[in-house]
């Protein structure tokens, strides 16, 4: 018997837990050349902004050991073009679409949420909080619980009740649980983590930063231990809040790792660049692993690593958060 893979982002049911990560699946059309977008748990859009954005100069990417640095800078056509040309195509294909939004001010996020409100074909709104707050000298919202909560609260208020609001967090904070809690208190129905921690690479031949933008976001398997840790900590503190886990998922084993840590859905980002079939493959592998382990339902595996299994020899020690 195969396991029941349905999962819930708040009250919204998804047929399976494997999503694309924001900014990694294009408009959906590109991936559709390889596999059906409606077979995804959900398609998550790149972060949509009010106005069109040209993004950052090139080079926008640099490879690092088991990682990738990117500095795309939210290039996109703006919300109007998105609603006109991209969302309808996804809706036609039967994809469940999570619309990610990004802005530089609370007002901009709110305006985006208002613009999306009532538009058909939106399964959830994901708030990308890793955007610089232009009103706070460019400090990223996700690094400041209060600012993050303010954005979430205003998006929540502007979004119809039936559309869940997902707050997407960055790992480069001193206390991810505090930011997560602030977002949930602000009205987030679910959390997504992790967005890219900020990294940098210097080309030792040109002796200049490898990215035109200097710094960039680090993604890929290199960051998976950070993602697992963030999901674990937040699930431990807020066990009732649905978490979309991501960061370096390339196989079903990686997905299961995040699920066991507490994610009820996982998103695949950088792995898509290497394997355009990554989402259906990860889903298939996850399904097999659950089956091998005798799970009837994905839900039973969510957060399981938190529950000390009596029979396990290593469970005597308590689990504290410290690198020491």
């Amino acid at each position: 018997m195969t396991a029941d893979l349905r999962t819930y982002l708040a009250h919204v049911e998804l047929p399976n837990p494997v999503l694309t990560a924001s900014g990694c699946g294009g408009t959906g059309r590109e991936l559709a050349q390889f596999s059906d977008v409606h077979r995804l748990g959900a398609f998550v859009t790149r972060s949509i902004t009010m106005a069109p954005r040209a993004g950052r100069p090139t080079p926008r990417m640099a490879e690092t050991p088991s990682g990738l640095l990117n500095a795309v800078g939210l290039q996109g056509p703006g919300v109007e073009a998105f609603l006109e040309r991209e969302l309808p195509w996804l809706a036609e294909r039967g994809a469940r679409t999570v619309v990610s939004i990004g802005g530089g001010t609370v007002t901009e996020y709110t305006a985006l949420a208002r613009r999306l409100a009532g538009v058909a074909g939106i399964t959830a709104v994901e708030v990308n909080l890793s955007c610089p707050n232009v009103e706070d000298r460019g400090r990223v919202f996700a690094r400041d619980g209060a600012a993050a909560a303010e954005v979430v609260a205003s998006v929540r208020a502007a979004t119809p009740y039936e559309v869940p609001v997902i707050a997407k967090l960055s790992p480069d904070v001193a206390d991810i649980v505090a930011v997560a809690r602030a977002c949930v208190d602000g009205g987030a129905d679910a959390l997504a983590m992790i967005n890219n921690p900020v990294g940098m690479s210097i080309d030792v031949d040109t002796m200049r930063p490898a990215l035109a933008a200097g710094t960039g976001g680090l993604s890929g398997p290199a960051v998976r231990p950070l993602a697992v840790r963030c999901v674990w900590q937040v699930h431990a503190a807020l066990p009732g809040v649905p978490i979309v886990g991501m960061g370096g998922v390339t196989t079903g084993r990686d997905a299961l790792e995040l699920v066991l840590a507490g994610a009820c859905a996982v998103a695949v980002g950088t792995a898509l660049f290497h394997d355009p079939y990554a989402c259906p493959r990860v889903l298939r592998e996850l399904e097999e692993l659950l089956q091998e382990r005798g799970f009837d339902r994905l839900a039973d595996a969510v957060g399981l690593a938190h529950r000390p299994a009596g029979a396990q020899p290593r469970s005597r020690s308590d689990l504290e958060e410290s690198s020491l």
Partner: protein
Amino acid sequence: MAGSPVQVTGTVLTTRRVDAYHALTVVAPGIADRFRPGHFVTVAVGGRNSSMLTRRAFTIHDVKPDYGGTVELVFGVRGAGTAWLADLRARDTLDLVGPLGRPFPLPRDPCTCVLVGDEHGAAPLFALGDALQQRGCRIDFVLGAPSADRVFGALRARRMGETTTLTTEDGSLGMRGKVTDVLPGVIADARADAVYACGPMETLRGVTAVAVEFDIPVQVAVEESMACGIGVCMTCVVPVIGDDGVTRMVRACTEGPVFRGERVRFDDVGTIPFDALGAPGGRHA
């Protein structure tokens, strides 16, 4: 144009050295079938448990019908990924995705075309030359590189082309200089109707300037760092002027790599031109 790209785990049929380059022939029917000159593939490097996440992009040099379809890549060793590729042996497997990108558009009517290849940029020109000759076009080659061992395909060019002009920066083969130094003469002598070019940005910029001078169309295949090759990551963008006159940051992997030369804002590559759609503080932002 071509059908959808596919992922193929192909067997390496042959490996050979061609001066400074390595050539790999890989069995990849689904890719060979759909090939048009100018297409590229991306390959996974480093094997299982590799620390190298991104695929490497290579123009398809040639396809053959053997074993259901093979593709040949030609590359120089640059970093760890190409070093790994250079170590592949026959019977190893290689994971490819392709064919990718917008291939070279071909003229409707027979005409005279100059094909310019700088370093490994020469790789796609022979399949292109074949296609042009099949349409009755005359072709002339201009191939260049810093030194003789890095001029790719000179012999084949001599066999195929009406004329072939070689340049090296150190003068070790052909004329001393760059392809752009000799291009005006070649265009004039051949009374060329169009130019196709492949090579570093700087070369493409120069080639485009020459073509514009002669007021003939030029198609260039650009090389930008690519994290995905399939249009999802937005890392490979170049500033290109659209039909509406608006500059956009467009993806080299899907809208390109072949563009009309005069549409590419070569001077602004590596920047966001202030008048690009969505530029910071720009009129559309």
